[in-house]
């Protein structure tokens, strides 16, 4: 133990990710397929860091837009004569044309003024408003969607990724797995693991499920594993596979949107990752895509004006991306506030004219049959859903 050759260095080198070996799986349990409460599938992607909606979906038809900022070195494609879409999303342009891609613009959560990522994300995931302190709401709004529904199984809701996102935390059972989690177990070791957990049901059952999940990722990974720098691809593949089974509600994150500088370099890459994620979901879901709604939401938008370092700072209103066969796409949903100095929130940010929760609420209404009073009373307590924008076909 006091061997001086054993330093922390050689200890640490091993703590990276681990290989995998196919094996007989004594810990495997049979996964039973139960009936799910809905046919619709809802994917909520949390874009952490505050996506610049004004760069992603550019209001080039607004006469004040050009004076506020540069195009950050990126071209855009006209969508409807008023908005142009950043060409980082060009891979999903076909979805716009087939009506499987839409945007909501000038939207935000009720979060205002402090512009902290942490608090903004907390409010986004808690689904709380200014009427209730975020800290009062202990659970996430996707979990409350599950709480209000009878017949929820352990895998109806699935948080994918290494973090256990607040949006799915709560009293309803939710599965959590990251496809990069691997169990390097030979058949013998797996037998020994089954042996050591034999008498402790908590550990025994969790280990059995972990082995089954790790194996399901392995069999899925025939395409050669996650692309470098694209952890979301494996996540999206896994999410699609789960939604082909019992899973109906999925959430995961794509981080890195905090473009205070170097937006010209960062944004194309981020948007390609988002496109790749959406296309991977569509491919994996096959025909189920037609019953699927993907909502990509962020904690707040960014300043209307470009800052002094080729980026944008924390703002208020922004954009939300909606994709899926269930979405009535090919349009931008918005009540456009304008971009003159007087139109801006605090004279600096895009003025929000709609609440992202309202869009999410109407999606759950149409896709999962949640009635208005449940949405306004429980899932988003205190929200006035307002008029139905009819984003679901």
């Amino acid at each position, binding site marked *: *133990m*006091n*061997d001086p*050759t*054993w*330093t*922390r260095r*050689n*200890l*640490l*080198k*091993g*703590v*990276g*990710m*681990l290989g995998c070996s196919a094996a007989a799986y004594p810990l495997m349990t049979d996964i039973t397929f139960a009936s799910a409460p809905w046919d619709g599938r809802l994917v909520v992607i949390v874009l952490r860091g505050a996506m610049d909606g004004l760069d992603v979906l550019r209001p080039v038809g607004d006469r004040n837009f050009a004076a506020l900022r540069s195009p950050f070195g990126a071209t855009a494609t006209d969508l409807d004569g008023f908005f142009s879409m950043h060409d980082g999303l060009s891979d999903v342009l076909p979805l716009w044309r087939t009506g499987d891609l839409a945007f909501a613009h000038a939207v935000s959560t009720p979060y205002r003024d402090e512009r*902290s990522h*942490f*608090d903004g994300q907390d409010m986004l995931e808690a689904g709380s408003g200014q009427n209730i*302190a975020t*800290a*009062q709401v*202990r659970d996430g709004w996707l979990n409350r969607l599950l709480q209000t529904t009878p017949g929820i199984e352990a895998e109806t809701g699935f948080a994918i990724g*290494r*973090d*256990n996102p*607040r949006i799915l*935390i709560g009293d309803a059972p939710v*599965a*959590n*797995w*990251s496809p990069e*989690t*691997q*169990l*390097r177990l*030979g058949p*013998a*070791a797996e037998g*020994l*693991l089954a*042996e*050591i*957990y*034999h*008498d*402790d049901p*908590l*550990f025994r059952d*969790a*280990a059995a*499920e*972990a082995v089954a*999940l*790790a194996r399901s990722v392995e069999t899925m990974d025939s395409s050669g594993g996650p692309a470098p720098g694209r952890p979301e691809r494996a996540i999206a593949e896994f999410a699609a596979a789960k939604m082909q089974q019992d899973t109906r509600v999925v959430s995961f994150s794509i981080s890195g949107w905090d473009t205070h*500088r170097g937006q010209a370099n960062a944004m194309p890459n981020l948007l390609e990752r988002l496109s790749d994620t959406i296309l991977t979901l569509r491919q994996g879901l096959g025909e189920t895509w037609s019953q699927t709604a993907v909502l990509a939401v962020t904690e707040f938008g960014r300043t209307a004006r470009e*800052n*002094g*370092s080729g980026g944008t*700072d924390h703002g208020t209103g922004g954009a939300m991306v909606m994709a899926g066969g269930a979405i009535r796409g090919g349009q931008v949903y918005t009540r456009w506030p304008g971009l003159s100095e007087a139109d801006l929130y605090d004279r600096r940010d895009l003025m929000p004219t709609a609440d992202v929760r309202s869009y999410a609420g109407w999606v759950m209404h149409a896709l999962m049959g949640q009635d208005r009073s449940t949405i306004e009373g429980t899932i988003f307590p205190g929200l006035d859903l307002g008029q139905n924008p009819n984003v679901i076909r």
Partner: protein
Amino acid sequence: MREQDFAQVRFGYGFGPRVPAQNRAEMFAELSRPDRAQQQFPIMPMRQALQLGREFRDAARARRNGEIGAEARYDTAQTALRSASGNGMRASLARIVEGVDPLRERLTWFWADHFTAAPNSPLTRATVTTYVDEAIRPHIVGRFADMLKAVVRHPAMLTYLDQQVSIGPNSLAATRTGRGLNENFARELLELHTMGVGAGYTQSDVREAAELLTGLSIDFDDGFVFRPRAAEPGPETILGRSYGSDERARLADIDAFLEDLAQRPETAEHLAQKLAVHFVDDAPSTALAEDLAAVYRETSGHLGAVTETLMSHPDTATLPLRKVKPPMAFITSALIALGLGGSEIAGLSRPELGRMIVRPLAGMGQMFMRPAGPDGWPEDGAHWITPQGLATRISWATAVADRAADAAGDPRSFLDRTLGALAGPRLQFAVSAAETRAEGIALVLASAEFNRR
């Protein structure tokens, strides 16, 4: 089984080559000695952190104004805050792994969780361990009221629960700024920190408490400041008692309220139950909770006396160990079992810290000091032992064991040193049947026996 066979597991971070078996009385006795771990692995004091905060604020302002050189200045300021955050984490973990006073560490983390103040800004991220070091750790065997007062004066808590933006609706500051009351902290003070949810206070008590707490605020020079001009004028009535007067608002009125809260029988019961749940069982015996509450009441909330009762109670002298180690306790106790010392943790580079501790912790479900809400981390073992959580523990144990196998020696003797009489026959068999040393050691660390406390 003798209590020294497991006291260090239940009330500390387990055994290791540097952490010998102790019985409960020996562990408790350490608390009356000087805090060696704190001296050995210091954490940046608030005063110094505020300097970094001021510089960051000024650099951000300069950058917004497009001043020359502002980019580099901003980077430097941001890096300074980040490294303060990393250093605080290293020192906190090093104190645990050094193993000189495990009960002190456990109590510190218990009360830090009770008074959760998760960071929500670059400065609070840099000072979250400072908060624990200054507001919590000095009071773990002192009076609860003193800990409460220290917490209520700390910028980390005031920021986390929005107290610094809460302004008396009829104060001078409100008429000037148009801002108003924020009940967040007042509510959590009653619900989480003292009396407990459903303990008989009303919405009116919450509102009056929120009005009383106005004036508690922060700045970058002193950290905590009391601003009488932001305080709601006039007395407030909370739980049937009146605090303050029509005179200028005083911090002493808030302290009087906190003293009263700390003495409430509901507070005694709430804290006693939490301690029993944390250290013994999710469903502790009523005798244990009642005995702890009784001592709390008799001593007017002396935490040393309450801890002594816990450490000498019949319920803590016996098995089984029903609790699950949260991820941070799992990782630190494994490092202790493998024989690492605090200086090795303190010396980790930023990438090493990320690879070895920060990311595995997140994969196990515990972002360092960032629970989802002010109620802190869950006590229920099922929250941690999920497929994802357990698989990450197993993977981490495997990776660490691969590197440690040669030094850790024969897995059977490692098992004996690490768990001793706690190891069940199936674990003993599996460890002796392992194909390699590394596999044997990984099995010990992954076992239910090692993951419980």
